């Protein structure tokens, strides 16, 4: 420090000086303090969205690195790199650069595999986060708009995952693109036009990889970033929801201040997420394109499996009966049902859900206290049935693999899927409804014996609190008969958390 060391003890701290410099110019002190003091409720399930956010940050970092080496070009070339099995093979520059960045760029393979794993975890975390928001009713007024932003983020995440693994031009991605082409082609009236404009002609199309590259690294990520900012800004502005508990009301929010504990914890979660993705990227092989080989339109291998988040679509395509309505010389091609109608309905219903539920329950009030799933048996049953429906389809997406594994015939398997897709969700929904009722009834009973979950009185043991799951046992409520007044009948239930 050259400027006046002797005045050291009178000078404000460096933090204060920097703060003053910024504040003189922008006047943000008040806002910044409010931000530091912001209260965020603590529950493990509120971290799911954060995991999605951190996976996306890993995607941006690793993806940027990959763009320095990947060449999005369909021009033909011959491989001359260090992987023996492909030397001398004709391929596109896209595929070649992907193989080269895996074998000949130091740390390239780790980055590529981390990128792919991060994409799988990103979508998975969004789906689980969406389920949390659904089952706890966090989408209700005033958060319908944020639900819409969130569903859009899921849609974009799935879309960018698909364009991502389609870029490499290996045998597997080519097969996926071929099916995607056929799905778009099946749209009445405009399908032939859209495919021609999107692919630049008939499949495989001359410009596909260059176009998907721009979508994948610029357009869609920019939309995701914009929507993520909106998503988080709305959470900050509206304040997070919270579970019911002593002192927690509709008109307050109880939890931890952002600074310092919550901020440190959240940074820790970022590093943990990134670390797990790095371990996966280093140790768990994913999408080994050098084994699949370059894309040959006339070839396809058995057991071609898409990434997990496309599995339900693949399953629906397989399980769909051979219907193809025709009239007046026109037809509705079969892939339309599974490839266009089903995803259209899925996302249409997702978007509409907050409004549909408000209409059916006639509950248009503001809610900041979360439901426990058991308190809303019908919603929970519908959610469980929906998850079961997509799980059956997901399994059907691997029907050939399952058939080989378990020595069944593919035909029997598909027929059982066609049946299960109706029976399993119905059964799962009924069981869930029943469970909710039983749990809620048990909560309502006065406990006849001292429950083992009875918390110790007084301050919690610091060691127990420091456990990974923040389990605020002593803050858990007693029975919550759904929306009506809370009756405190005794000790907390044995299983305080319904979610």
């Amino acid at each position, binding site marked *: 420090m050259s400027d006046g060391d002797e005045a050291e003890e009178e000078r404000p701290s460096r933090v204060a000086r920097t703060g003053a410099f910024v504040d003189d110019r922008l006047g943000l002190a008040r806002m910044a303090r409010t931000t530091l*003091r*912001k*209260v965020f409720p603590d529950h493990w399930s509120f971290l799911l969205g954060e995991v999605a956010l951190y996976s996306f940050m890993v995607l941006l970092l690793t993806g940027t690195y990959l763009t320095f080496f990947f060449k999005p070009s369909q021009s033909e070339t011959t491989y001359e790199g260090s992987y023996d099995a492909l030397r001398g093979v004709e391929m596109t520059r896209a595929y070649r650069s992907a193989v080269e960045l895996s074998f000949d760029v*130091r*740390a390239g393979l*780790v980055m590529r*595999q981390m990128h792919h794993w991060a994409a799988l975890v990103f979508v998975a975390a969004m789906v689980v986060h969406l389920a949390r928001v659904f089952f706890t009713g966090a989408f209700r007024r005033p958060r319908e708009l944020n639900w819409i932003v969130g569903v859009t983020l899921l849609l974009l995440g799935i879309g960018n995952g698909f364009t991502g693994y389609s870029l490499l031009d290996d045998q597997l991605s080519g097969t996926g693109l071929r099916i995607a082409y056929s*799905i778009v*082609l*099946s*749209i009445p009236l405009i399908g*032939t036009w859209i495919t*021609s*404009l999107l692919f*630049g*002609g008939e*499949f495989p199309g001359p410009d596909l990889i260059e176009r998907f590259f721009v979508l994948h690294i610029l357009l869609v990520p920019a939309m995701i970033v914009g929507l993520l900012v909106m998503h988080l800004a709305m959470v900050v502005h509206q304040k997070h929801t919270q579970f019911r508990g002593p*002192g927690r009301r*509709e*008109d*307050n929010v*109880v939890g931890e201040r952002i600074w310092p*504990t*919550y901020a*440190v*914890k959240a940074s*820790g*979660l970022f*590093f*943990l997420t*990134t*670390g797990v993705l790095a*371990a996966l*990227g*280093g*140790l768990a092989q994913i999408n080994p394109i050098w084994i699949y080989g370059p894309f040959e339109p*006339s*070839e*396809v*291998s*058995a*057991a*071609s499996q898409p990434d997990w988040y496309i599995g339900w679509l*693949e399953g629906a395509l*397989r399980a769909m*009966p*051979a*219907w193809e309505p025709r009239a007046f010389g*026109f*037809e*509705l*091609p079969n*892939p339309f049902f*599974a490839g266009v109608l089903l995803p259209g309905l899925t996302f249409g219903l997702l978007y509409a859900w907050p409004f549909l539920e408000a209409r059916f329950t006639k509950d248009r009030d503001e809610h900041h206290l979360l439901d426990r799933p058991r308190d809303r048996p019908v919603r929970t049953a519908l959610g469980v049935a929906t998850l079961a429906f997509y799980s059956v389809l997901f399994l059907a997406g691997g*029907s050939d693999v399952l058939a080989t594994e378990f020595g069944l015939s593919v*035909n029997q398997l*598909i027929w059982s899927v066609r049946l299960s897709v109706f029976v399993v969700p119905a059964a799962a929904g009924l069981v869930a409804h029943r469970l909710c009722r039983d749990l809620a009834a048990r909560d309502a009973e006065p406990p006849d014996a001292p429950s083992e979950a009875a918390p110790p009185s007084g301050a919690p043991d*610091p060691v127990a*609190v420091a456990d*990974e799951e923040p389990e605020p046992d002593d803050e858990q409520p007693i029975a919550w008969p759904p929306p009506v007044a809370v009756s405190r009948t005794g000790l907390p239930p044995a299983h305080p958390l319904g979610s």
Partner: protein
Amino acid sequence: MTPDPERHARPATRQAYLGIVVALSLSILAGLGLAVVYSRGGQAQLEGVLLAVSLLGIGVGLVIWAQRMLPDDEAEEARKPLGSAPEDVAAFTTELERGEEAIGSRRLIVGLITGGLGALGLALVFPIRSLGPRPGRGLFTTGMAPGRRLVTADEQPVRAEDIPVAGILTVWPEGHQDEADSSTLLIRVEDESLFTEPVKLDWTVGTVVAYSKLCTHAGCPVGLYQADEHLLLCPCHQSTFEVLAGARPVFGPATRALPQLPLGVDEEGFLVARGDFEGPVGAGFWDRSR
């Protein structure tokens, strides 16, 4: 907002302190190790593990710190109503409407601006048309033409006897090997008399029949042949086609038979196409039958 009660850092337990120190030390070591591994040529698994340890070390350290040592006071914040005060809404509405009147009174200008923007928007839609050709008849035709030889991936022409009995061979029209929609399956069965309706017998050459290789469901190549049952299977969605009966679909989502190709033999005995397939190949589209 009321000020918090005095914040307190919790007394560090030995375990917590030790845990943080170990985690962060491991992280430092792993980071240095990563630099060493990288500079010595790199090794994917080691890089992944070291990167993971260096990140997880920081993560574990931060989480233990936050959970065990940093203040854990519960704070409460009031939730203010989200909607604005009625007078604010009213003031805003008045302001908006005043401006709207000023703008709206010039009907002609507003109309012309709307018209200009509309025309511009319409004009900007047209460059999208440059993205691809008009679908046209391309979807209805392939590279097959009368007299065109059928060649393998190595560009070798094929005689009927080159195909093993009960075997299949993928071929393309000569000079059109890069056209994805022209790939064709030649299937040689054991005996001519096995063919039944609706196989066009005059389109076969002896015991050899030719079908489009593209599945009529989603366009995947129908690459698996079960010779004992004469079934072609699509590996994508398991549509199954009966070769002896005109490749009609017998299982799976496909509804249409694989289009048959009229086969012939040229003067040198090589298999040729005598024309295009009997219908559009591959996945369906709305005006396919037109």
